[in-house]
């Protein structure tokens, strides 16, 4: 009898292990990264189709967008082309652009040219996409129209130098209790069509719960990385309504602004 019991146990163990190896087989992944994105718009010119994707529907704030260039003559994706975008909001009498980032290095990654736009206002926006299709030596421009949803991720403030600044919150996009990555971008309005990044500001960040009158320790002030992106750490000690006060300076105090965040 004891032998039978041991045998049964061994058999059960083997079955359990074989079960594990079956389960470890990963589901087939598709190579097309756009499957998990939304198509913002698409248009063709000069035998070239330009498709614009985004992880989600555009909203005020920092939006990553991905451009795919396809040669319509043979329906192949063009990876060695070049892309330049220009966001534009047409307000009748006047129009203005927004801070944006063209593909770093110019080339496509997995068939997509990564760009970004800081939409600074909700409403109908135009996105002009200039392309050069190396495959058929064509170049041209398409224009897409789409709606940008409102959000409170962008704060504008007039600096001590009387310029208008835009501070955009990127992280935490999904705030959690504990230590979170913190990331903002800082731009200013040079004119209606140019919003250069500020790369030399010192940022002091102070999270607090206004309803309680206390803050949190262990935060790391954001410092500049590249293209106007500043990264640090923010610590939320509990769930609830938090405010992050930001104090920017470039030698002298420049501006203060704040973001309200609900930590679930």
């Amino acid at each position, binding site marked *: 009898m004891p032998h039978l019991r041991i045998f049964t146990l061994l058999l059960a163990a083997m079955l359990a292990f074989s079960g594990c190896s079956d389960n470890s087989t990963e589901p087939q992944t598709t190579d097309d990264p756009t499957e998990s994105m939304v198509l913002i718009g698409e248009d063709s010119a000069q035998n070239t189709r330009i498709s614009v994707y985004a992880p989600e529907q555009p909203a005020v704030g920092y939006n990553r967008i991905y451009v795919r260039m396809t040669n319509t003559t043979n329906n192949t994706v063009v990876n060695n082309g070049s892309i330049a975008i220009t966001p534009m909001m047409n307000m009748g009498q006047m129009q203005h652009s927004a801070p944006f980032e063209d593909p770093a290095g110019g080339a496509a990654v997995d068939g997509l040219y990564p760009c970004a736009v800081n939409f600074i206002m909700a409403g109908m926006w135009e996105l002009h996409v200039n392309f050069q299709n190396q495959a058929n030596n064509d170049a041209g421009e398409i224009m897409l129209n789409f709606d940008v949803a409102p959000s409170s991720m962008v704060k504008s403030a007039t600096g001590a130098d009387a310029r208008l600044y835009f501070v955009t919150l990127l992280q935490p996009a999904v705030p959690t*209790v*504990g*230590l979170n990555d913190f990331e903002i971008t800082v731009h200013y309005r040079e004119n209606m069509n140019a919003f250069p990044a500020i790369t030399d500001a010192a940022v002091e960040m102070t999270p607090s719960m206004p309803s309680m*009158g*206390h803050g949190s*320790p262990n935060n790391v002030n954001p410092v500049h990385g590249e293209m106007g992106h500043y990264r640090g750490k923010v*610590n939320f*000690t*509990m769930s*609830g309504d938090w405010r992050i006060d930001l104090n920017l300076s470039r030698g002298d105090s420049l501006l203060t602004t704040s973001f309200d965040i609900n930590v679930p």
Partner: protein
Amino acid sequence: MHMKSLPGQLMFLCILLAAASNAQPSIGGLVLNNATLTPVAYADVVISGTQQGVACDSSGAFQLCLPPGEYQLEISALGYQTVRHRLTVRQGENAPLRILLAPAVIALSDAVLVYSEESPHHIDQWLNATDDVLQKAEGVAMIRRANFALEPTLRGLNSGQIGLVIDGMKIFSACVDRMDPVTAYVEVENLEKLEVSRGAFDLTKSASVGGTINLVTRKPDFQRPFSLQAESGYETVSRLRRLRSEVNYASANLALRGTFSIKSAGNYYAGNRILVTNSGFEKNNYKLDAVRKFAGNHIVEFSFIGDNARDIGYPVLLMDATRTKSQIYRLTHRWDSPGAGIQSLNSTVYYNRIDHWMDDYQRDVTGREVMPDMYMPMFGYTRTLGAIGEITVARGQHLLSAVLDGYRLSAFADMKMESIFPDVSDAYLLNIGDAQVYNLAFILDHQWMPSARLRVRSNLRIDHSSRDLRNEFGRRQLQGFWDNISVRQSTRIFSAGSFLEYRLGRHHILQGGLAQSRRLPTHIESYGFFLYNVTDGYFYTGNPGLAPERSRQIEIGFEQIDAPLRWRVNAYYNHIDNYISGVLQSDEFKTFANIRSAVIAGGELSATFAPGGPLRLSTSLAYTYGHNREMDEPLPLIPPLEGGIGLQYRAGGFWLGLDSRFGSRQERIASRTTREDETAGFFIVNFRARLPLAKHFEAQLGVENFLDQQYHEHLSINNLPGRGRNFYFGLSAHLPD
């Protein structure tokens, strides 16, 4: 005793008396060493509660002549543990007695006896509450946060630095604000005795740097086939009403005991009739015990304690405890060997669950200093499952106990924050994100008696502890503070101590001890989060990376025993490295950290004068010095010079007591690490009496703080005043007499 040198004369007198009256039956016996079964020469045999007795001869034999009746004999001899033996003397011939004495063990703990039969002279059962008994123990001072469940400190150390156990069981407070010390769960009618071991010499019950307080509960009494007792009492200072009842049943092999008590108190008055609001409480407590004897010296005990309290006001804290619920289960098997070699085998399994709710809905939170405009309901629980196994072996001059003591603690606590403004969303945090602590200890307790004068007791203890936080939310909160330290920790610590006693003569003992011990951080020190400390106004956060505290200590003492005037004096020095303390982290936050070192030193003096008549005088004095070397300032919550004097008069069932407690001014304060201030001295006088009324009835009455002193003690948090003049009286009925 002085009769010792006169065995022959007494035997002669006994024979003479027996011959003359022909009425006194004689009873003889033999006293033997239980390990070797050799005779113990010149042991004293005394009738309990009297000065009557005889001494054995050189071959361990004794003879007594007594009128028929029930007696308890106390048999004692130098180098042996005193044994009590009940007997019934009958007319005519009585069977000879065979008394086995076990070699004495150095008592590394003091006992404050309440309902214990060990010494009827020490019965403290007139006290109203367990806290009163604790306060009588030398070296113990109580932290007061409310008129409820004071928290004991031992020689200036508290919380995780000392062990606090019930019948050896680990029980952990569920309240992160320490509103529920485990002493609350043993009502005074269930307290047989307090075992207070000071210093790290007795490591059998906890790995601590300061000592252990063990609340030994009362068990069913096989000597009382049936008894019933009920008491009702009233205290004026808080309009406290109390009802207690106890029933005991015993047959030859089974004994049962049950108690139930209920208390209800309103706000109390401090001295000068100052009303302390938010200080009432309601509480009930029940305890059930069953003991079954089996053939072959096997005994199985089951014990259950249930304790429920509600609406407990905490005047000095931000909130009140609305409800507490505690359930404590224990199952023990004991086997006492009748022969030499293995002396006993004990094994216990236990489980306890403590739940604690508190909130500030009864407080005005508008615009208050801490967490304004917010209600903060909190909940916490602990669950502890443990087992203890112990084997005791005697061989030659050696007595060795080996103990295996393991437990698992699960602890959780959370807090909601509800704004009084509807547009502000609620906030939430975990004070303890489901901490799991596993601890397994192996202890060797060895006593060596190279001669009748010298005894050496040594303890060696190894603890292995592993701990973790299981709640992801809780982990993230803590990692916001300790990004680079794993919350999962595993540690092994070693502790060892040795204590020796040298008998200078029949009445004098010289004592000395050396110990090096470690204590692990508590689960709150490791994982606590956002704990508001009213003594310094900071929010505390645990530190998973804390190192164990490391103590080196030395103690010397001198004692006079077995004389009408008994006294003892001792002094100690305790150097603690890696002392765990709050360290400023940012404007509002402190974290637990190991600071360089701290020193605790002091001494105790106690004396009892019992000339043998109805009078007994006792006094005690304790001084504690604590210094934080890192901050170069005194440690917080260190009691000043404190003491007490008591005078008792007993005659028949009538009992009178006059006692006082006093403390000197405390000027040594921790002004940098806390908001402590200096505390004035105090002197409290209490008067107590117990008198039999009629058959089956007895009255208890007294007045505490007779002079109605308005005072607070140094360990009263935020200077919460002590209770003012309190008249109390109670009436008890008992069956049979």
